[in-house]
Structure formats: C-alpha cells, structure tokens
C-alpha cells in the first residue's frame, strides 16, 4: 500500500543521497580542468612546480573523487530500488541516457583516472597530459548525459504514452538530447562545478599565502584558480539556467513559485527582491519590486508575458478535469484494447493523463472524484513558494559575491600583489564552503520546484514509488545516513590533513612538511 509516509520517506532518502552525492560532484567537475591547465603548463614550460601542482591538487581531487564514485552508484540503484513504478513508466526514455553515460563517459573517466594517478613514470609527458584531458572530457560528458536525463524530468519532450504497454515511450531521441532545458542545465551545472574547483584551489592557496609557506606553489595555484574561477562564475551567472525556464510549462510554474509571482503582470514583469509569500491567500504580504527586471531575465524580451501562479492554477484546473476523463478512458481501453472508438477518444485527451493521475493521491477510482478534489489537485501543482523563493535568492546572492571575489582575485593576480592583500586572502579562505551551499540550493530549487511531479505533467511523485514497507525505508534511510556520515568524517579528516600538510605530502623534498606522513613518520623518500 502506498501511503503518504512511504512517499515522503522515499523522497527524503532520494533527496538526502542526491544532495550528499552533489557534495563531491562539483569539485570533481571543476578540478579536472584545473588539473588539465596545470599539467599543460608543465608540458609547455617544463617547470617542475607545475607537475607538483598537478600531483598535489590531484591527490586532493582523488580523495574527493572516491566519495563521488561511492555515492554515485547509489543514485543509479535507487531508481530501481525505491522508484520502481517510475522506472517502469519512463525507463524507455530515462534509462537510455544513463546507459549511454556509462558507455560514453564513465568508462572513459574511470579508466583514465587510474592512469592519471599511476601512469606518471610509465607515460611520456604528452601521453600523460592526454590521459588527464580524456579524464576531464569523460567527467564532463558524464554530467551531460545525467543532465539530459534530469532535463527530461523537467521538460519531457520526444516521448508519448502508450496504452498497450502502460508507459511512456521514446519517439524522438534527438528531441530528448537537444532538450533546451537539458542544455541550459548542463552549462549552468558544469560551470558551477568549475567555480567550486576554482574556489577550492583559491581558498587553500590563500591559506598557504596567509601562513607564508610554500609560496611559489601557492602563488601559481592562486593565479590559475582566480582566472579560471572568474571565467566560470561569469558563465554561471550569464548562462544561469533560468534561460531555459521560459520554454516549458514545468519551468514556468517553478519560475512563478521561486519568484513569488502570484499574478500575471503585463510584460515585462517586475522582480521581487524581497517578499513575504502568503501561501494560504496566494499573495505576498510584503514585497519590494523592481519594475521590468523579472520579465527581462525570464523571457529575454520586453513583450512576452509570464504567467503568475493564480493563472497557472486556473489553467491546470482545466487540465485536471480533462485528465480525469483520460484516466477513465485509459481504464476502459485497458479492459477492451481493440475498441477503436475508445482509442480515438483517449488519444484526444491523453496529453492531460498525468493531471488526472494527480487525483490517485486522494481516490482509488475516478468515480469518487469531486469538484473540490479537482480544485485541490490543481492547487497541488504549485510547489510551496517560500522555500523556493528564499533558496533561489541566497543562491543568487552567493553567486554575485563570488563574482566580486574572483574579480578582485583576478585583478590582483594581474597586478601581482595578491599575496600581500591579506583581506582578500582571508575572504577567499572563508568563502570556501559557498559554492557548495549555492549548488545544493540550486538543486533544491530545481527538484523541489518540480513537485508534485517526478516527470512534469506526466507522472506524479505519489505514484512513482516502489511498494516497499515503511519499515524498510526507515531501515535503509538510517543505513545511508549512518554510512554516509562516517564516510564524510573520514573524507574530511583526510582532506584537512593533506591540505594542511600541503605539497610536502608528495615527498619530493621541495616543500615544507616533508616529514610527518602519518604516525610512522616517513621522511620524503627521495628527499
């Protein structure tokens, strides 16, 4: 029996494991390119400090990557273990990008990461650089395919429902691949990853500079991170994935919710800098507007209207009504598959099938549906406004703060005086967690903003879960939380330890802290 508790626990488990996974992914996405840049500098200049940089930052990258791999498998498993009906209903479309991700991207990344760490003495300089580049390409292609899959959840293009197989089926693969939502999401997400990688290197290098140690190593690392980070943060902001939001209905709903736009305003709409949303009365108790800005950001035009929440609910109320009819016809058609008349009538309304399925949360048969329940289902199509409104604003504020930080860092590295700018260095150090917070909030907006659907307009979250017992869910959730907490503690311990020890941990004899590699006290072997 699917209860609300089961659905909530399944969602909580997915959210927890996905957000945990995304503690590690953005750093990987960004660090690989920083490693490519550092190693390219080594191959071009022959300066050994660049090799040391590649190896030391690579060591920290590896500590992070291990948990990225560990937590990534969970996500693939979980569609099957906890979202069985989802997997059946959309596997025909959703499974393909995941499988292609494995074939095209993850094999590449995972095979070459082995050679990246162990191939230094067995490959020529150029060969090793090629290995690093292929690892980076694999990592980023991997993100592409995952975001194609995720983009389809937000904007399900290129697929149709089949009453014979009782699922969505692929009709246009290219539409799925070139889904504008997926493309916008990809650029935004990988750029955010690059910012994370840059911030990581910038912060830790700033700490060495503040401590006055390993200076040449830290200076060069800082400059590379500043330049790469500035370019990336510009890309995140300019190509924010809001650009993809106008194209689809799902994203219009999300946009209206995260901007607390209750009414449809004449174009171009104003932007609520701050608001106190009132869910019950569907209005803002207080709002500070800037005229025009929202319309321009959201539609990139002056004359396109953006629907407000109230109008979206009205529109969806009509779709719910048609959807109820679609569910009825589907049931009749399943019982009598040869009936051409039923089939024709069903084909006419099947685009609203998902809206009818929303009522399955409240009733088991469409005969029990009342107008009040349909009102409720239509209101359900709007996610809670306040959490989205504030999460989005904090994310954007952090984005702009990072833009200023990287801008200053780049400015002072061009001038060459950043090592003396202790205020800037401290800022860089204390801002270390910010890209992670921004990424997590961004994912929260993207996924919470899609509720109550797993596939927008197609499959309600409520129907997507596996028919497991609530006890199983409590057990597995406790297991994940326990296991992940333990692993995170171990990871942070190693990360902090090696970051503190610094490039001395390579045992080259060129840096501070050569001794002290663990309790055994092992002096740099080649020192």
């Amino acid at each position, binding site marked *: 029996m699917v209860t609300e508790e089961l659905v909530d626990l399944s969602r909580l488990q997915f959210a927890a494991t996905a957000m945990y996974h995304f503690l590690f992914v953005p750093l990987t996405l960004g660090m690989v390119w920083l490693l490519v840049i550092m190693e390219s500098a080594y191959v071009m200049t022959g300066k050994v400090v660049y090799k040391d940089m590649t190896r030391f930052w690579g060591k920290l990258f590896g500590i992070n*990557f*291990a*948990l990225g*791999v*560990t937590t990534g*498998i*969970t996500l*693939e*498993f979980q569609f*099957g*273990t906890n979202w*069985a*009906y989802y*997997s*059946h209903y*959309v*596997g*025909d*479309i959703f*499974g*393909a990008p*995941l*499988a*292609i*991700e*494995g074939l*095209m991207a*993850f*094999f590449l990344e*995972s*095979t*070459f*990461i*082995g050679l990246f*760490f*162990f*191939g*230094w003495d*067995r490959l020529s300089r150029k060969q090793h650089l090629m290995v690093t580049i292929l690892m980076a390409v694999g990592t980023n292609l991997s993100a592409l395919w995952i975001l194609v899959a995720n983009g389809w959840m937000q904007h399900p293009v290129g697929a149709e429902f*089949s009453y014979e*197989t*009782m699922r969505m*089926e*692929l009709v246009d693969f290219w539409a799925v691949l070139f889904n504008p939502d997926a493309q916008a999401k990809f650029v935004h997400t990988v750029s955010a990853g690059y910012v994370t990688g840059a911030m990581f290197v910038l912060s830790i290098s700033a700490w060495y500079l503040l401590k006055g140690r390993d200076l040449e190593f830290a200076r060069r690392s800082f400059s590379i991170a500043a330049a790469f980070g500035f370019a990336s943060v510009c890309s995140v902001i300019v190509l924010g994935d809001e650009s993809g939001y106008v194209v689809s209905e799902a994203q219009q709903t999300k946009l209206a919710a995260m901007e607390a736009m209750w009414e449809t305003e004449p174009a171009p709409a104003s932007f609520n800098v701050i608001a106190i949303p009132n869910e019950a009365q569907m209005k803002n108790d207080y709002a500070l507007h800037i005229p025009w800005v929202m319309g321009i950001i959201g539609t990139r035009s002056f004359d396109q209207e953006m629907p407000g929440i109230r109008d979206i609910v009205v529109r969806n109320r009509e779709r719910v009504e048609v959807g109820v009819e679609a569910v009825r016809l589907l049931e009749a058609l*399943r019982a009598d598959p040869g009936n051409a008349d039923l089939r024709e009538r069903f084909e006419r309304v099947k685009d609203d099938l998902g809206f009818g399925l929303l009522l399955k949360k409240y009733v088991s048969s469409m005969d029990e549906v009342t107008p009040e329940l349909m009102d409720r289902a239509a209101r359900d199509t709007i996610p809670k406004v306040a959490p989205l409104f504030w999460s989005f604003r904090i994310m954007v504020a952090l984005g702009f703060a990072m833009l200023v930080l990287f801008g200053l860092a780049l400015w002072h590295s061009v001038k060459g005086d950043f090592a003396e700018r202790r205020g800037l260095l401290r800022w860089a150090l204390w801002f270390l967690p910010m890209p992670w917070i921004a990424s997590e909030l961004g994912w929260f907006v993207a996924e919470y903003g899609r509720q109550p659907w797993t596939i927008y307009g197609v499959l309600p979250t409520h129907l997507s879960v*596996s*028919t*497991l017992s609530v006890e199983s869910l409590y057990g*597995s959730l406790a297991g994940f939380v326990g*296991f992940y907490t333990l*692993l995170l503690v*171990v990871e942070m311990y190693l990360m902090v330890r090696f970051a503190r020890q610094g490039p001395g*941990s390579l*045992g080259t004899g060129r840096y501070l802290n050569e001794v002290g*590699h*663990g*309790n*055994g*006290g092992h002096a740099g*072997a080649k020192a």
Partner: protein
Amino acid sequence: MIIDYPTLKIIWWLLVGVLLVGFAIMDGHDMGVGSLLPFVGKGDVERRIVINTVGPHWDGNQVWFITGGGAIFAAWPIVYATAFSGFYWAMLAVLWALFFRPVGFDYRSKIHNATWRSTWDWGLFVGGFVPPVIFGVAFGNLLQGVPFHFDDTLVPYYTGSFWGLLNPFALLCGVVSSAMIIFHGAIYLMHRTEGEVYQRSRMAMMLAGMVLLVTFTAAGLWVQYIPGYAYASVVDFAALPNPLGKEVVREAGAWMANYRSMPLTLLVPALAYLGAIAALLLAMRGRTLTAFVASSLAIVGIIGTAGVSMFPFVMPSSTVPNASLTVWDAVSSHLTLTIMFWATMIFMPIIVVYTSWAYKVMSGKVTAAYIRENEHAAY
C-alpha cells in the same frame, strides 16, 4: 539499418549477457583479488602489492557494473524496476559492500597506521567478497522464480522476504559465483605477483577451482529437479511488450528443455567445464596469462549456462507465473532498443581498446621494490 523487433529482443538478451559477463570478467577479477587480500598478503608490503595489482584498474572495471545496470534500465525497464525493488535489502547489501571499495583503495595507504590500514583491508575484502555471493544468490532465486506480481496498471508487488532469498539452492549458487570470482582473481594475482604472494595465490586458485567444479556440477544436477517455467501460450515475438498477456506453467525439469530441443546449446556448459579445467591446469604450470583467458571463458560458460537454461525467461514469478518477465515481453520500445544497440556497437569496441591500453601501460609484476619507490603515490 533497421533491425526487426523480435531480432532486437534476442540481441538485447545477448547484450545484457555480454555486459554481465564483462562485469564478471573485469570487475570480477578485482573483486576476487579483494576477497583474497587478507589471506594472501601478510604484512603491509604484501598487502600493498596485492592492492596495487588492481589499483589503476578497479575503477574502470566497476563501470561494467554501472553500465550493466543502466543497460537493464534502458532495455528491460520493468525487470530493473521489479528486481531492484523486490530484492531491496539484497541490493542495498551489494551497494553498501561496494561503498568500501573506492574509499578503501584510495584512503588505505594515505595514513601510516596499522589499525587504519587493516580496517580498510577488511573493507576491501567485504567489497570484493559480498557482491559476487549476492549476485550468485540472486541468480539462484531467479532460477527458482521470485514471488512477485503486478496490478493491472503494472505496479510491481514483491511478496517475499529477504530471508526467503537465502534458500539452499540459492546459497549453492552463491558459492558457485564466489568460487568463480575467487578462482579468476587468484589467477590474475598469480600473473601480477611473485614469491610468497604468488605461492599463496596459487594455493587459493587450486582450492577455488576445485570448489567451483564441484559446486557447478552439483547445481547443474539439482536444477533438473527444481521447477522451471515454460510458455503455455503461443508467443507473438513481435508483439508490444505486455507481461500480463501470456500463460506460463511451472514444472520440474523445464530448465532442461532448451538443451533437449537445441543440443548445440550444450556447448555452453561444456565451455564452463573446459574453461575451468584448462585454467586450472595452465595456472598450475605457471601459464598465467593463458589461464586468465581460460577462466574468462569459464565465466562465459557459467553465466551463459544460467541464461540458456532460463531462456526466454528473465525473471519468472513463482506466485503468479503468468506475470513472469521474459525476453519477449519485458523489453523497451523498438526505437529505444535500436538506439541502445547502436550506442553499444559504437562504444564497446572503443572501451575495449582503451582498457587494453591501460592494462598494457601498467603491465608487469608488482613488486616490493615498486611499493618502496612509490611510497607516496601507490595505493
């Protein structure tokens, strides 16, 4: 090129087989190495030798598993949905065991502390030992049928328990699987090591090889007496997939039907025996590379035997046999199978090429001297 739907359904049965076999051969040998780690490596240097034989490769190898899962999701979505949710705790046990591998490999030698290192060694053991056992147990349950059914909108319901999976036949299959992986891993370890580690691996290889031959035979004899499944209605190979549109009977000996009707298929279990015996003899003579090829062929034969016995069934239902999932009615649409077929045809050869190159770059024995020279870089 358009391939017709029935042919593609069979091709995808073969391709899922290829991915599972690829997983067992590639990730299998490093899982075998993980299973042997605490026993063939005495002392830190030997342990590091063992770990570093697979250090550069385990991650790439693990992708066979991830891609296999993704391919089942894409090609047999309802199998993926029903099996993963039905075997909930078994899947979580595999998953949690696998957690130890990435962190075990990467973190173990980063700290000089005996307790720390030995903890991760046992973690790597769990990560290598547990998954093959559970996969074997899962196959044992698939062969007997699994208690599940669907409602009329195809929502799967699993009505068994985790403990019900641990029945004698399934446990025997778990031993077959574990012995196969340890045998294969031991041969690999012999190929990449020398001295004491080599000798201990050789002992493990002989032991696992014997256990494999005995238990595989026992399972083969036993399977003739357990109830198998067979179509009782006419199969429309080209039909749109509908797991509720057929009749199935459950009868003892049904898993032998394919061998009777197509005697050539007996070559598959024959390959399992020939491969395993050849691998055993070759490895004893120190011909470790050829032995590794032979034990890979044995894996093809063993997994192939399970597949051929059950064909066209993939996941039979013991409680509602008509709801069983088969090659004909559990598949994706024609278009998805076509696209995935071409994606596999294009990328699989490329993967084989660069994986081979990676092994070539890292080839040769892993020695104590290598560990000393790479104190800070090696696992």
